[in-house]
């Protein structure tokens, strides 16, 4: 085959094609590919971080639940202790009140006894005087022997 001007024609077509591709296709498309690669890398990194965050979140949640449970248990214990204290206090109070009543009662009994003793004493004095009067068939002068008789009564 001989060389004809077709060669020049084809070279011109080729040059125009290359120039067009270089100016209008290459730059933007390479940029798009780079951007997309970066977006994919960022997306994967964000997904990794998201995973990590989720793990941490789960751990935190478990911790919070545990703390809550501990606090609840503590509060229950405190309430129970308070109950016990209240019961003890009221028992003590009851006991001391009973003691006071008993003491008061005893004091009253003693007082009654003393009063009774006093009454008896005076009656005994009267009886003793009457007896002595009868025994002696004389009228005893109460006033002379009062001192001796009070002394007798005091010894009762």
């Amino acid at each position, binding site marked *: 085959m001989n060389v*004809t001007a077709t060669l020049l*024609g*084809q070279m011109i*077509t*080729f040059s125009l094609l*290359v120039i067009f*591709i270089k100016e209008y296709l290459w730059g933007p498309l390479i940029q798009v590919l780079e951007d997309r690669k970066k977006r994919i890398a960022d997306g994967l990194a964000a997904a990794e971080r998201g995973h990590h965050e989720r793990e941490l979140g789960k751990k935190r949640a478990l911790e919070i639940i545990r703390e809550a449970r501990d606090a609840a248990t503590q509060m229950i214990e405190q309430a129970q202790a308070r109950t016990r204290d209240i019961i003890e206090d009221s028992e003590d109070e009851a006991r001391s009140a009973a003691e006071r009543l008993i003491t008061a009662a005893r004091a009253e009994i003693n007082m009654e006894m003393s009063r009774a003793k006093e009454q008896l004493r005076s009656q005994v004095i009267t009886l003793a005087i009457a007896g002595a009067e009868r025994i002696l068939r004389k009228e005893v002068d109460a006033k002379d022997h009062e001192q001796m008789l009070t002394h007798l009564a005091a010894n009762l």
Partner: protein
Amino acid sequence: MIHASNAPATADPTTYIQHHLHPLQAGQGFWTFNLDTLIVGALLALLLIWIAYVVARRPEQGVPGTLQNIVELIVEFVETQVNDTFLTRPSPLVGPLAFSIFTWVFLMNSMDFFPVDLIPKLTEMSGIDHFKVVATSDPHTTFALSLSVFLLTFFYNIKMKGVGNYFKGYLIHPFGKWLLPFNLFMTLVEEIAKPLSLALRLFGNMFAGELVFLLIAILPWWTLWIPGLVWSIFHVLVVTLQAFIFMVLTIMYLSMAHEVPQEDH
């Protein structure tokens, strides 16, 4: 040229083949233009330009559409090839050049898949005698590509190495300065063989492929589908591979032109 279009192909195989291999020409002597080659080449280049325009005017940043996806695939493939092959930093022309070569050669080669009689018959109905569709089976196309590439390597060689160093290379490589005539001879042979082989490899493959299709077309219609099928499937590989090889060799020659040689003498 004998106009044998209405005769059955099996009647006169030689004429049939010769008719199909003759390009549509206009002009005389050096100024003959193979119009079919030029028109098909230009149309396919326009197709590429149109696709490039449509894809690049508003590129989708997120998930791309199908066309953009395919174009991106090829662009990324070419860019990877360039960056892997180059030892120095490639000039910004190399990527687009390699892309254009690959896609344009692939499209032109693919014209071979049309049934051999289809387009010539259609053009005949409009009064045109011949129409060879496969532009790369015209050596003018392959030589145009190869010569363009070699002009570029020449320019890059001069640009990167300097005029003196470049021509000194002819005298010094590969044997050393005492075998100067040998060096000159070997380097000249290499420098001529490279563009020649680049062009002829593609031309030979495409021309032979077309010829085989024509030979298959001569067979009777009820047997030709077997070899036709086999050859078509094989030709898919050949078409893609030849485009790829042309592109890879271009990138390689350009990368060698970018190299600044170490001072080792």
